[in-house]
């Protein structure tokens, strides 16, 4: 770049020959964009603009001054000053500005030096009107357009400084005669400057107008895009609403369909059962009627499965948590599954420690999962072995109870395992034809296990058999159940062994249990169980008497039967909970009717269905004892 600078110096400095910087040639309107020098610094667009104006302008100034001095005494200093003004200074100014750290500031300083030069020449030409007017008006206009009013004040100060410096030498001589050449050059210069600034102003105006137009276009484009986005958003919202409505419609449809399907099924099952009673003794008829009934029950199972799945999907499936003895539930499931397993000529091995302890889960769902796995094993195994292993294990992530159902049946390929837990998908359609089944069981099992905080795992090999392992959280005190179920704030892990034979805690009077039941055998049984656990027992045969005793004794726990002559248990429970002096006493409902929700809703802390499981009852008692002692 500097070599080009020097070349243009030598060639008289046409502006077109000299791009301001190495990159990009400034166009007529291109000074809005900074250009970058190879060193990485940016040069302010003002530098290039001023250069293009300064080169001809200073040349005109120099020529005018030169013409002024043609018929006057002159020396080498004057020539040097004229050459400096007309040729050297514009290049030097450009060099300084483009090398400066802050090119704009440097350029403004250059402009002030322009003013100083003009001031000097104004005094030097003895304030001749035409050249002075041309020079001062040009430089003041330039400063006004570049730097505004404040800068122009500085410019005027610089001009004045120039006038003072040179005027001190010339004695502020004032001369009026002007040669024709000087006058012509001055007029031409004025004309040139006026034209340049006029043209410049025209370009600026055009740019502003064009900029406005572009801005309007962009604004319109943004508006258009905004409209499009708004439409898209609206359609997404509509789609969301539609999906929600569709889901709602699906739920209503499922509920209705379930109703519509159950009504005829009710007739099919009912009549086939009636006919079965009539047809006893006619073997052929009984077989066919059995088939009708079995098919009907299968259909019912399907409908229930679909409903359960859709309830889980809709988040409407509830868990009814209760504490139960694992060994007891396993025993029940084994009893139900044994005939199924042995029908296919299988051996059935069960390994479940009697002291495996308690779980706090939805016992119905645990039972359903176990039965499902066992009946699957029975279905797919012939003349083999089905094994049920149950164990408790402490792991890093807590205490777990495991149930493993293992068979030596047909097994599954990895692809079949992949589809295993998808609803309606059996290993393949051939399996489904041969073995029947809804294909819903395992996906329900898996969802139940997940809901209960556990999981289910499968290992299998074709021809060798399958093993399903269910894992459920074993800590009965750490569960996140529904708040309504957890009236007792912290459940203490209760070992039956801890409770049995343990008397009242030292230093405290025995806790009192009030048993309200119209059945004397229940009263007797509760009396024995509770006294064994170290409680004092008060019994009542009716609701009315029970309420009276509750007020007198202020017991630590009340067990309450629901179905009693006279005042029933629900009324007693409601009355207890309304009475502020009794409301805090925990109530356990013990009844034959399974209405857990109602009991819990009325304020019972636990709910037992008769016949009462002693261990569960003891565990509930233990909880209360510890809580209330604490």
């Amino acid at each position: 770049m500097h070599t080009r600078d020097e070349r243009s110096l030598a060639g008289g400095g046409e502006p077109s020959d000299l791009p301001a910087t190495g990159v990009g040639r400034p166009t007529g309107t291109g000074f809005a964009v900074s250009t970058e020098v190879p060193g990485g610094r940016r040069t302010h667009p003002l530098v290039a603009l001023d250069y293009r104006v300064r080169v001809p302008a200073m040349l005109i100034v120099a020529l005018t001054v030169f013409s002024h001095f043609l018929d006057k005494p002159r020396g080498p200093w004057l020539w040097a000053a004229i050459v400096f003004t007309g040729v050297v200074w514009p290049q030097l100014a450009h060099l300084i500005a483009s090398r400066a750290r802050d090119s704009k500031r440097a350029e403004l300083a250059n402009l002030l030096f322009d003013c100083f030069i003009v001031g000097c020449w104004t005094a030097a030409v003895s304030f001749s009107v035409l050249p002075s007017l041309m020079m001062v008006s040009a430089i003041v206009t330039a400063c006004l357009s570049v730097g505004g009013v404040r800068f122009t004040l500085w410019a005027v100060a610089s001009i004045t400084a120039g006038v003072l410096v040179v005027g001190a030498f010339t004695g502020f001589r004032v001369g009026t005669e002007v040669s024709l050449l000087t006058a012509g050059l001055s007029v031409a210069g004025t004309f040139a400057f006026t034209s340049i600034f006029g043209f410049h102003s025209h370009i600026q105006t055009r740019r502003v107008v064009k900029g406005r137009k572009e801005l309007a276009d962009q604004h319109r484009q943004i508006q258009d895009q905004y409209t499009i986005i708004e439409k898209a958003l609206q359609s997404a919202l509509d789609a969301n609403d539609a999906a929600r409505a569709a889901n709602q419609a699906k739920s209503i449809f499922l509920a209705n369909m379930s109703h519509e399907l159950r009504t005829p099924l009710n007739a099919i099952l009912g009549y086939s059962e009636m006919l079965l009673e009539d047809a006893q003794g006619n073997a052929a008829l009984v077989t066919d009627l059995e088939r009708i009934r079995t098919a009907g029950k299968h259909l019912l199972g399907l409908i229930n499965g679909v409903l359960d799945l859709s309830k889980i999907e809709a988040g409407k499936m509830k868990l009814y948590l209760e504490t139960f003895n694992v060994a007891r539930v396993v025993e029940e499931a084994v009893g139900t599954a044994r005939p199924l397993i042995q029908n296919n000529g299988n051996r059935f091995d069960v390994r479940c420690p009697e002291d495996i302890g308690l779980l706090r889960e939805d016992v119905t769902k645990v039972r359903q999962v176990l039965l499902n796995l066992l009946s699957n094993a029975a279905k797919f195994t012939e003349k083999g072995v089905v094994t049920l292993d149950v164990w408790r294990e402490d792991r890093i992530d807590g205490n777990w109870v495991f149930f493993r159902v293992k068979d030596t049946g047909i097994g599954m390929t990895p692809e079949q395992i992949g589809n295993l837990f998808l609803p309606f998908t059996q290993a393949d359609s051939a399996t489904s034809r041969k073995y029947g089944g809804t294909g819903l069981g395992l996906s329900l099992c898996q969802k139940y296990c997940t809901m209960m905080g556990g999981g289910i795992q499968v290992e299998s090999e074709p021809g060798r058999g399958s093993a399903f392992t269910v894992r459920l959280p074993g800590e009965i005190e750490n569960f996140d159940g529904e708040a309504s179920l957890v009236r007792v704030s912290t459940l203490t892990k209760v070992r039956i062994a801890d409770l049995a034979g343990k008397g009242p805690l030292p230093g405290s009077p025995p806790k009192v249990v009030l048993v309200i039941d119209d059945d004397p055998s229940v009263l007797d049984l509760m009396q024995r169980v509770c006294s064994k656990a170290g409680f004092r027992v008060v019994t009542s045969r009716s609701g009315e008497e029970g309420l009276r005793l509750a007020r007198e004794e202020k017991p630590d726990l009340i067990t309450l039967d629901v179905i009693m002559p006279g005042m029933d248990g629900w009324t007693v429970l409601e009355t207890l909970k309304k009475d502020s002096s009794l409301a805090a006493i925990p109530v356990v409902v013990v009844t034959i009717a399974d209405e857990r929700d109602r009991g819990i809703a009325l304020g019972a802390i636990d709910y037992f269905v008769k016949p009462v499981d002693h261990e569960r009852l003891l565990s509930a008692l233990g909880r209360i004892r510890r809580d209330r002692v604490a």
Partner: protein
Amino acid sequence: MSKILIVEDNELNRDMLSRRLARSGYDVVLAVHGEEGIAMAQSEGPDLILMDLSLPVLDGWEATRRIKAGRTTASIPVIGLSAHAMADDEDRARKVGCDDFDTKPIELPRLLDKIEALLQRRPSL
């Protein structure tokens, strides 16, 4: 012999249920909608009512509510029956005063247990 009023609009189910209960040794009277059910509860004075909840004219919930509000009929135990397996059917039934609830298709032994439990609860006449 205990008298049971069945309120059920579906003809097949009404016929089947009435015959099965008759076989099990109950005296059975029938109504096909809620309005008729209330009238029969007053005129027949049954010992127990099996009330289908989805009924024409007047549904089972409203019929039960009125039966339980009636002076002469309030003490008659009502078992709500529904083919909907949705939980809130049962909750609604309990709220209007049903003493018990069962789902269809009916499992006869289970229903008979519930009927007996309620009949025994009534003071014998």
